[in-house]
């Protein structure tokens, strides 16, 4: 795939289309899942910290959890469920209907045309989606923590400011980029080697989501150890 990346012709249009599919197409689910993840986390933290009078820590805990772990992981799983499965379905269908063979016949490299733009598009868009997830989640934590749990704004805000570091945000985005590489590669791989008609495409789609989600969780552990 690396050789296909650097070798011309460069498929910028395919790259843009894939970025639209992965980024713009996933925007709504990222906004929704980010907002409600932040909200429920703030609600539970406010309750748990409130038991011993430390509810001012709610904001910082939610912000740290979102930026370091939940943002990259949940946005990756959302994109795996939507985009990775989509990639496996599209490429798998092209495989079983012999469109990929036809491309080879026309001297078009299917890896360069189908896989490279999708993988790089996901690598580029995942940090963006992760940042959106983090931001919306923190806003939701403000809404729930200050609006509903009644935590004082100054304490809530200053604890976030004190404990959250720019490295937490940028480190999470680096993780998201790595997750993007993994989940898109798995989706494309499962689709590219799909076989057995419509049933095979269905299996490839299911496998891509399962493998991508599990891989994200496993690699997250090691990435966290390396980055922090």
């Amino acid at each position, binding site marked *: 795939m690396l050789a296909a990346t650097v070798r011309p012709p460069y498929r910028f249009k395919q790259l*843009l*289309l894939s*970025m*639209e599919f992965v*980024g*713009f197409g996933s*925007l709504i689910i990222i906004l929704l899942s980010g907002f409600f993840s932040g909200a429920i986390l703030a609600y539970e933290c406010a309750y748990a910290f409130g038991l*011993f009078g*430390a509810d001012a820590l709610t904001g910082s805990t939610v*912000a740290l959890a979102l*930026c370091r772990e939940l943002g990259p992981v949940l946005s990756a799983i959302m994109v795996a469920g939507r985009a990775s499965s989509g990639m496996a379905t599209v490429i798998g269908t092209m495989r079983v209907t012999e469109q990929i063979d036809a491309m080879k016949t026309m001297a078009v490299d299917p890896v360069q045309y189908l896989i490279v733009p999708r993988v790089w598009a996901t690598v580029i*868009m995942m*940090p*963006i*989606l992760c*940042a*959106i997830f*983090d*931001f*919306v989640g*923190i806003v939701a934590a403000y809404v729930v923590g200050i609006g509903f749990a009644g935590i004082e704004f100054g304490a809530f805000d200053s604890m*976030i*400011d*004190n*404990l*959250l*570091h*720019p*490295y*937490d*945000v*940028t*480190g999470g*985005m*680096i993780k998201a980029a790595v997750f993007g590489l993994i989940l898109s590669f798995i989706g494309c791989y499962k689709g590219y080697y799909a076989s057995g008609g419509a049933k095979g495409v269905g299996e490839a789609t299911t496998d891509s989501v399962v493998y991508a989600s599990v891989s994200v969780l496993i690699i997250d552990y090691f990435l966290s150890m390396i*980055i*922090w």
Partner: protein
Amino acid sequence: MSKLSTPFKVGIVILIGILMTVIMVLRFASNWGQDEGTVTLHAYFDDATGLAPKSLVKVAGIQVGEVVSIELEGTRALVTFKVLKSMPIYEGVEEADNYMRNGGTITKKLSGILGDYHLQLTPGIEGRVLTDGDELKNVVQTGGAEALLNDAGKILKDVSEVTNTLSTVFGGPEGEKNIKEILENLNATTESLRQITNDNTEKISAIISYVEQITKNGADLLETGNDKLPQLVDNLSELVADLQATIDSVKAGVGDTLDTTKDGITQLRASIDKLDRTLESIRHIAQNVENGEGTVGKLLKDDSIANEAQALLTETRSLIKQGSETVESANSLIKPISDLDVDISLRGDYLINANAFRVDFGVRLIPNPSKFYQLGIVFDPHGYTTTKSVMTDSSVSGPVYETITTNEDTVKFNLQYGVRWRWFAGRFGIIDSTGGLGGDLMLFDDDLQVKFDMFAFNDNKYPRLRGTMLLYFSLFLPWEWGKTFYLSAGFDDPINTNLFDYFVGLGFRFTDNDIKSMMSIIPKP
């Protein structure tokens, strides 16, 4: 929405993402101290329990800094922290036991019952202002939550012992019986007392009136004899002292007194003889001094020696004054040098079109934060390209010209003067061995630097432009060497298309602090 073009949709998503990232980094995440600049100090604590990197440093409850690192040095904790430059910390005046009077003081304080701590700083009012790398010596060592809990444990133990004792004495049916008996006895006693007072009311009244009369008489006596009373007391004291002395002498015995007196007369006679001889010697020395004989006599009698001593003192005072002035001059000469910061950098860029490397070695001298001098040497494969036509054949058919392009002077020099204002710096001077000027944008605590240079105004049709972006690893990785190593990328001469190139590279930069650190770990012969 579906009518929007693909680039527009992608652009919107990327724009939103970048905007939210910037907001998170600038608004939510702590960029503490980046605008004002900080001073890094350190202090030694016996116990750093509860402190961690990024723990707050406060003055009057307001954050002025944060802990950078905590390391074990020997058996003590070396806590390094940074403080805003706008909050000067004074060293104080050294006194006994390494205590700095009126200097800055730091102590560890409990922030909450959960066991998190912050450092409480008192800036001090006297002495030198501490600068980067200095030690804050006044550390008030306090016990941690463990000590607090230990104290609380001891108090609870005492309370427990008291309650146990009370329980033993008064607890159970027997204790209850005892209390009941005590109360009954108390009741009976008060009843008896009441009976006695009822039966003897007249007698008690008479006693009280007698007592009143006695005290009244005593008061009158004291009032009338008030002046004589101190004298009477003094006389009485003297009388007692005399009596005591008389009794002591009688006790000493008469027989012993005679022997002692005899020995005493003999010793007194010998002492008087020695005293006579000593007085004779002193008289002889005094006579010599009076006559101006001997060293002391000459010193006291000879005026010329006194005059010479006076002249010598005057000369010595003058020499000391000259020495002080010389030292002050030397200090004023050395101070700018000691305040000078030096950055040494080396960068290698791969020029993609030229398929060659350019190496840039630079030394930046920074006398103060607002200005700097940039010196450097550059090994640039582009060099200066000159083209000329040379006649190679002048045969009958006419001269034949050949165009020769030469590439020379691949080693170039930089010498620039720069002025910095917050996140922007302007430069002018010699760039790549030609006159030029440039500007630098320095963002995120100098972790992201964007440089633009314009130079070589006469070499080609248009001036040569160069844009360089330096991205330090510390911007996105919490790496110890993040402030030392950086990535570079940029373009070179986009207007003169024949020389256009773009490049990527890697570089490192050492500050004088880094160099000092490295020097300290080099083994000494």
